[in-house]
């Protein structure tokens, strides 16, 4: 190995670092350490002149290792890796020391913070000595795509990709396309017809030459990695069909909460207590009637059924408030004299046109009654013979502080959206994770909301969390665009900092296979040792730390690198202890 020639750059980050850390002192202290050729400070290392400084020094001083002590590597590691690569050094021979988030921002004593910065930089110096150059790799992409779920999200994504001339396999569990949207009567906030919107989409999907629709089918035995997946489609036929595809879109959606669990509402006991989905069908029938065929004179709509509750689901289902207001408008149009009660916990009307829709709906002679979800749910009971109504709702009305009873003939329960019972099978098959609410987890909640941590697997629509039609469609089209981009490129870069197994040390215990969250490790019977699929591996290091015989090395996180980093951090200010 050639002798390391290290260049150290301490960033001021304007005042962010320089105010709390004496950057010149840090540079002076580390400048004399073995292998350190130069140590410099600069106002903003990430700026173009900052990067040029590094490039010039690499060329002029023949540096072969570079350290930047600045912000978190999450922010600028890639920036500096690209810069050193430009000067002809392998980007993995670069290391970053975080002296902002982990130092200047969180401390108040300048001399102590300066000492800590020296420690952190020293750790990086120790580590970078043992860095090894790593090579970028890529795999080719099969242009076909598998879409799981034939609701509006899945169909829109499928159409987007198929219209670009690429093959799509659309797998739907039930016997029809359209999902929940096909069961809606009108949509909020513009009260336009759901059926008129969804039917042409179903037609286009079913007739599209580039889309193969598999109804009443489930997917199983998914294997492979980004660009090169394969799986079996099981649809009642004795022989399952094998499909090959490069990307997967999960659009499995959510289902309605079963309100019979909530005793207070008497769902199942009172025939005129219906769920919001059932009420959609009543509305679509053209006439709102009770089970006895009478026109209801009082209708109550109860919000947050199963939502925002410590007992059932803590999350908000996002769409029910606006669906309830849509109901209010529809009921008012059909039954001008009917008393309509909106029994809500909080009115959530965010989104384009929704607050306006709420304000407008308040003028439909609706009586809004508020209950406290945490304190006490409204209770529905049978009315007495002497009462002028079918049922009575007893509740503590929050905004008046009064205990009231509400006469009703029909109650609509705005049921929560929750995960399907078989959600775990799906996520296991395609290798994505679930959050506590059993929603699919996206790669980054803000910056990457349609990708997952598994390359080539995307999530769209409500399986990622409750959402309305526009958001589902936007996600579907975003995922399609991402997939089309990889197809167009023909290949995708894969993780470099993967793990590998030293077959000679492997004892064959298969611990690594059990702990790997990406199912990237398999066991080779012939060699009696584990093997890492470098395309699937994300370099998380779990296997490396679990391996009892030290046979697994995580590239860029070798034992040698980490131990010397620790040595570095302990060797300066703490030597007095």
């Amino acid at each position, binding site marked *: 190995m050639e002798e390391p020639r290290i260049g150290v750059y301490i960033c001021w980050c304007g005042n962010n670092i320089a105010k709390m850390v004496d950057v010149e002192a840090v540079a002076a202290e580390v400048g004399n350490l073995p292998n350190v050729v130069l140590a410099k400070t600069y106002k903003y290392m990430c700026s173009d002149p900052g990067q040029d400084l590094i490039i010039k020094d690499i060329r002029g001083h023949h540096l072969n290792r570079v350290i930047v002590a600045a912000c978190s590597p999450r922010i600028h590691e890639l920036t500096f890796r690209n810069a050193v690569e430009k000067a002809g050094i392998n980007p993995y021979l670069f290391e970053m020391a975080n002296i902002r988030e982990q130092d200047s921002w969180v401390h108040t004593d300048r001399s102590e913070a300066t000492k800590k910065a020296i420690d952190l930089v020293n750790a990086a110096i120790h580590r970078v000595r043992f860095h090894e150059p790593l090579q970028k790799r890529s795999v080719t992409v099969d242009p076909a795509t598998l879409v799981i779920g034939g609701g509006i999200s899945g169909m829109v994504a499928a159409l987007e990709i198929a219209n670009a001339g690429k093959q799509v396999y659309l797998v739907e569990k039930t016997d029809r396309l359209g999902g929940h949207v096909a069961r809606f009567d009108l949509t909020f906030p513009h009260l336009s017809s759901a059926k008129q919107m969804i039917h042409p989409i179903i037609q286009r999907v079913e007739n599209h030459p580039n889309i193969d629709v598999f109804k009443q089918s489930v997917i199983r035995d998914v294997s492979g990695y980004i660009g090169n997946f394969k799986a079996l489609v099981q649809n009642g036929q004795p022989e399952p069909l094998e499909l090959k595809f490069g990307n997967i879109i999960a659009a499995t959606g959510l289902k309605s909460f079963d309100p019979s669990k909530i005793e207070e509402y008497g769902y199942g006991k009172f025939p005129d207590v219906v769920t919001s989905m059932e009420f959609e069908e009543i509305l679509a029938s053209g006439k709102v009637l009770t089970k006895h065929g009478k026109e209801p004179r009082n209708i109550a709509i109860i919000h947050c059924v199963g939502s925002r509750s410590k007992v059932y689901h803590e999350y908000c289902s996002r769409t029910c408030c606006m669906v309830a207001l849509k109901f209010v408008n529809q009921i008012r149009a059909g039954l001008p004299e009917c008393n309509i009660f909106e029994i809500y916990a909080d009115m959530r009307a965010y989104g384009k046109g929704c607050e306006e829709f709420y304000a407008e709906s308040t003028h439909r002679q609706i009586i809004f009654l508020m209950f406290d979800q945490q304190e006490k749910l409204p209770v529905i009971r049978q009315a007495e013979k002497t009462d002028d109504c079918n049922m009575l709702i007893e509740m503590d009305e929050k905004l*008046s502080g009064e205990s009231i009873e509400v006469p009703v003939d029909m109650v609509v329960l705005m049921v929560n959206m929750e995960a399907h019972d078989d959600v775990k099978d799906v996520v296991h098959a395609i290798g994505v994770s679930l959050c506590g609410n059993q929603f699919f987890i996206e790669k980054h909640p803000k910056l990457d909301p349609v990708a997952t941590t598994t390359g080539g697997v995307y999530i769209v629509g409500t399986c990622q969390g409750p959402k309305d039609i526009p958001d589902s469609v936007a996600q579907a089209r975003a995922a399609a665009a991402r997939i089309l981009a990889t197809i167009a490129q023909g290949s995708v870069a894969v993780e470099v900092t993967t793990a590998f197994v030293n077959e000679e040390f492997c004892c064959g215990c298969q611990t690594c296979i059990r702990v790997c969250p990406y199912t990237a490790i398999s066991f080779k019977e012939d060699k009696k040792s584990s093997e890492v699929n470098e395309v699937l591996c994300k370099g998380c290091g779990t296997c490396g730390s679990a391996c009892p015989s030290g046979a697994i090395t995580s590239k860029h996180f070798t034992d040698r690198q980490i131990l010397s980093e620790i040595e570095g951090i302990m060797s300066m200010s703490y030597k007095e202890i």
Partner: protein
Amino acid sequence: MSVRVQPELRNQLIQFGIGDWNACYHCGTCTAICPLSEEGFLFPRKKIRLMQMGLKDQLESSVEPWLCYYCGDCSKTCPRDANPGELMMSLRRYLTSKYDWTGLSKKFYTSEVWELAFILLFAALVVIAFLVILPSMGYHFTKELTADGGVKVNSFAPIHIVEIFDWTMAGVVATLLISNILRMYYQIIWKKSKTKVSLWVHIREFWLLIFNFAVQPKFSKCDDKRYWLSHWLLMSGYTIMFIVIVVYLPWFQTEKIYPVWHPQRLLGYYATIGLLFGLGVAIIGRLVRKDVKFQFSHVSDWLFVIMLTLTATTGILIHVFRINGMPVATFISYIAHMAVLVPMILIEVPFSKWSHLAYRPFAVYFAQLKKYAVPK
């Protein structure tokens, strides 16, 4: 115990003013901005809630609508344009009709035909009294003047008869108002099953009633003090006139013409200026409709200011014609004055807008009593 929601109450309430209180989504900005809303007496939001839900009993036992003096800050800051100030005004009309046991108040507030018919009926009775009844009793109009050139008013409007009539009218109005106030007391204090107020507290806090009647200190807490002033000028002018006419009529309605500095004339001039100033502010305000409190004028609001203005102007005319020795003009303006004054007193004071002269100070008194209520 739960109370039944009564959505149909809305249909009754909307007859007393603007109806779209569903616009309110209970942010509470109105209550926060109101300089008069305080712990224990929070409004307007809470009252709007009772209206929305149709909680009749709770509404009718509310004292808060009378503690609002309609500065309009709530309506100005309402993010939903729900006009809380006007809703409180509508509620005061509704409550007035509820305190009144005769049912006439509700008729007058909800039907212009009824109100106009009664005004015309009383006016006609006044005209008949002067043209038929009094002459038949021997009191004839004369063109003769007094020694100092004044009109002989007593010839057609004899003091002792007018005085008896004034006292009778005051008695009728007072009986009605007092019975209504007792009903108001029953609703706000007596009916509360869980609490009671001791007799000593009733006596100790009674001064508040007098003080609030005379000065309206609560009104002065509203941000715009100008309305307090114009209201106070109007109210003090009216009170002086009322006392002078009912209690001191022989001292006031004289045939002799006193010099300008005489208290009889000075008091009259003050009362007239106070009335006209207050009325001017109200009329211009309601016409221009720039200020929130004057944006919505119910028929009862207009009738009140119009009738009071007519009473004041005909009163001025009587004075001018009398001291200038113009007997025919004095006679006509005297009849006209009585023809607006009598219906105004008989309709406005016990049944309509003017009843607030009693309900407001009593409400402050009752609110104070509520503060000292103890559990039974």
